[in-house]
C-alpha cells in the first residue's frame, strides 16, 4: 500500500516537531527516515501509525484518507526500539495477540492461529522459542519476535522505530541484512527510522533525511551520498573536510566559491603543492587497522582534516606520523557560494 503525507505540522508545547512535512512512499518500497534525535522522524512514524495526531495536514493510505481511523483500524505493523513485548505472555501468545483480539466474526480458529504463529516463527527463524517468555530471549531474538508479532495481522504497511537501536554492533549488522532480504521476500511497504547513516545507506531503497522537523532531501542512497542537497545532508552522511577557497575563478552568475566541502577519500596527498587550493598540513594520527588507512592532519591555522586512502597508496607515499604534506581536493562534494 502506498503512503502519502501532506503538509503535516506537529508541536509539543513550544517545540515544533514537524513543520510542513510532505512525503510519498510507493507500494513495496523500503524507506529509511534518517536524522539526528529531535529531527521529528519518530513523530512522523507515529503519526502515520495513528499513535500521535498531527496538528494539521493529511495522510492517505493508498489514496484513502486515514485521518479519521484509529490505530487499531489502520492495519499497520509497528516495531518499537525497545521491542514492547508483553512480558506476561509467552512468545507464542505475543505473536497470537493480534489474531486473538480480532472481532469474533473475523477471528481465526485456534488451529488456524497455531498454524499462523508457527509459520511466522519459522519466518523469523525462531521456531524453538514458542513457549518461552520474552525475558528469556536475547535482544536480537526479541526484536525478531516483535517483528513476527507485527506481521501476524498481515499489515499492508510496516513501520519500524529504530528497530536495531538497542542491539550491539554485531547483531545490528546481521539483522540489518536480514531485514533487507526479508523485505525482498515479502514486499511490504516499509518505513524505518534510524539515526545511523550506514544502516540507512545499506538497507533502504530510498532515504528521507530529516532535520529540525523538516525534510532536507529525499533520494536513493547514492543520490543523497553523492549529491547532497544541503550542508546538513552532506555532514550527516559521512565525514567531511572544509576548504576555504582562495581561488579567484568565478562561478557562473558571478558567485565566488567560499567554502568547499570534501570527503576524506576525495583528497590527494602530495609532498609538494599541486594547486592554489592545496593546504599544508602535519599528519597527527595514522590508523592502519582496516581495509583503508585513516589519517588525521592539522594545518598551520589549526584546522583538522581527515584523509582516507588505500593501503597501497599509503605505502607508495612512504608517509609517517608528523610528516609535512599538502592536501588538494580531487573532487568537491559540495560548495557554498558567497554572492
Amino acid at each position, binding site marked *: 500500500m502506498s503512503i502519502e503525507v501532506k503538509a503535516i505540522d506537529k508541536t509539543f508545547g513550544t517545540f515544533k516537531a514537524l513543520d510542513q512535512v510532505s512525503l510519498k512512499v510507493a507500494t513495496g518500497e523500503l524507506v529509511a527516515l534518517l536524522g539526528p534525535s529531535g529531527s521529528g522522524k519518530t513523530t512522523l512514524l507515529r503519526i502515520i501509525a495513528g*499513535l500521535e495526531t498531527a496538528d494539521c495536514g493529511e495522510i492517505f493510505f493508498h489514496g484513502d484518507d486515514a485521518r479519521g481511523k484509529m490505530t*487499531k483500524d489502520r492495519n499497520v505493523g*509497528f516495531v518499537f526500539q525497545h521491542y*514492547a513485548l508483553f*512480558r506476561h505472555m509467552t512468545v507464542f501468545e505475543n505473536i497470537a495477540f*493480534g489474531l486473538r*483480539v480480532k472481532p469474533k466474526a473475523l477471528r481465526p480458529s485456534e488451529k488456524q492461529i497455531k498454524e499462523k504463529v508457527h509459520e511466522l516463527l519459522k519466518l523469523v527463524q525462531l521456531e524453538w522459542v514458542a513457549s518461552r517468555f*520474552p525475558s528469556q530471549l536475547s535482544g536480537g531474538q526479541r526484536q525478531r519476535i516483535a517483528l513476527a508479532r507485527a506481521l501476524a495481522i498481515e499489515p499492508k504497511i510496516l513501520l519500524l522505530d529504530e528497530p536495531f537501536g538497542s542491539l550491539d554492533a554485531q547483531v545490528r549488522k546481521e539483522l540489518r541484512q536480514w531485514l533487507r532480504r526479508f523485505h525482498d521476500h515479502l514486499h511490504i511497504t516499509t518505513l524505518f527510522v534510524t539515526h545511523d547513516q550506514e544502516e540507512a545507506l545499506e538497507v533502504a531503497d530510498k532515504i528521507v533525511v530529516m532535520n529540525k522537523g523538516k525534510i532536507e532531501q529525499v533520494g536513493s542512497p547514492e543520490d543523497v551520498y553523492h549529491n547532497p542537497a544541503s550542508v546538513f545532508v552532506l555532514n550527516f552522511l559521512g565525514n567531511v573536510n572544509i576548504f576555504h577557497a582562495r581561488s579567484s575563478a568565478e562561478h557562473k552568475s558571478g558567485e565566488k566559491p567560499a567554502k568547499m566541502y570534501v570527503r576524506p577519500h576525495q583528497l590527494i596527498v602530495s609532498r609538494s603543492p599541486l594547486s592554489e587550493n592545496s593546504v599544508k598540513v602535519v599528519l597527527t594520527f595514522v590508523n592502519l587497522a582496516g581495509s583503508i588507512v585513516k589519517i588525521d592532519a592539522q594545518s598551520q591555522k589549526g584546522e583538522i582534516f581527515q584523509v582516507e586512502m588505500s593501503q597501497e597508496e599509503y605505502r607508495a607515499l612512504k608517509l609517517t606520523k608528523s610528516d609535512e604534506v599538502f592536501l588538494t581536493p580531487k573532487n568537491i562534494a559540495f560548495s557554498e557560494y558567497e554572492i
Partner: protein
Amino acid sequence: MFKHKSTLPGFRISLGYTIFYLGLIVLIPLSMLFIKTSSMGLKEIWMVVSHPRTLAAYRLSFTASFIAGLVNVVFGFLIAWVLSRYSFPGKKLIDAMVDFPFALPTAVTGIALTSLYSQNGWVGQYLYQFGIQSAYNPLGITIALIFIGLPFVVRTVEPVLQELDPELEDAAASLGADRWQIFIKIFFPNLIPALITGFTLAFARAIGEYGSVIFIAGNIPGKTEIAPLLIMTKLEQFDYTGATAIAVVMLLISFALLALTNFLQWVSSKRIGMG
C-alpha cells in the same frame, strides 16, 4: 551457601540482627499469646472460641474486612490510575489526601465518620430516607474499614502503573486491540501482583482495626461487635485467658489468609516473569 560476594559487607551481622530484632519485637510477644492461652484446657478454649457471640464477632470482622478490602482494590485502583496517568491542577493535593487515613488518629476518624453517617448526619440522613441505616450497622463498620485501608491499595498499585511502559499500549493498539482489550489483556495481568499486595495490606489492617470502628459500630453483642472489641471487653472483665484464646484464633486465621494471598501473589508474579 547463602552468601554471594557483594560489595557491601556485613551479611552475617545484619542477618543476626534481623533475627534478633524480629524475635524481640514480633515473635516473643506472639509466643506469649500462645503460652498464656495454653494455661487453659482445650475444652475451655473451645468453650470461649465457639461461643455464639465470639463466632458472630469473627464472622463480622472477617467479612467486613474482606468486603472493605475488595472495595478498596476497585476504587483504590481507580485513584492510582488517575494519579499515575493524568496531570491536572490540584493533583498534588489529591495525592496528599490519599495519605490522610494513614496519618489521622483512628479515634478522630471514628468520630468524624459516626457524625457523618448517623441518622441525622450529613450523609446518614439521606441514606436513612432510602431505608439504609449506615451507622451502628455492619455497613458502617465496612465504611470505616474502607476509609482506613484505601492508601494501602493506592500506594502499592501506583508505582507499578507508573512503571508500565506506555509502548505496550501502543503495541497492543497497533495490533488491533481496542481499549477494553488493552486493559484486560495487557494492564490487568501486569497489575495483579500489586493489587493482591494492596488487598492483603488493606485487609490485614482492617482485621486489626479498633479505634475508628468502635464509634460507628454501635457494639451490639452478636450483631455489630467486632473481634478486637470483644477481646477488649474480655480484658476489661479481667478474663485474660479468654481474651488471648480469641486472639490466638484470630492470629491463626489471619496467618492462614496472609499465607494464601502471598501464595497467590507469588504465582501471579511468576506468570508475568518477575519471579
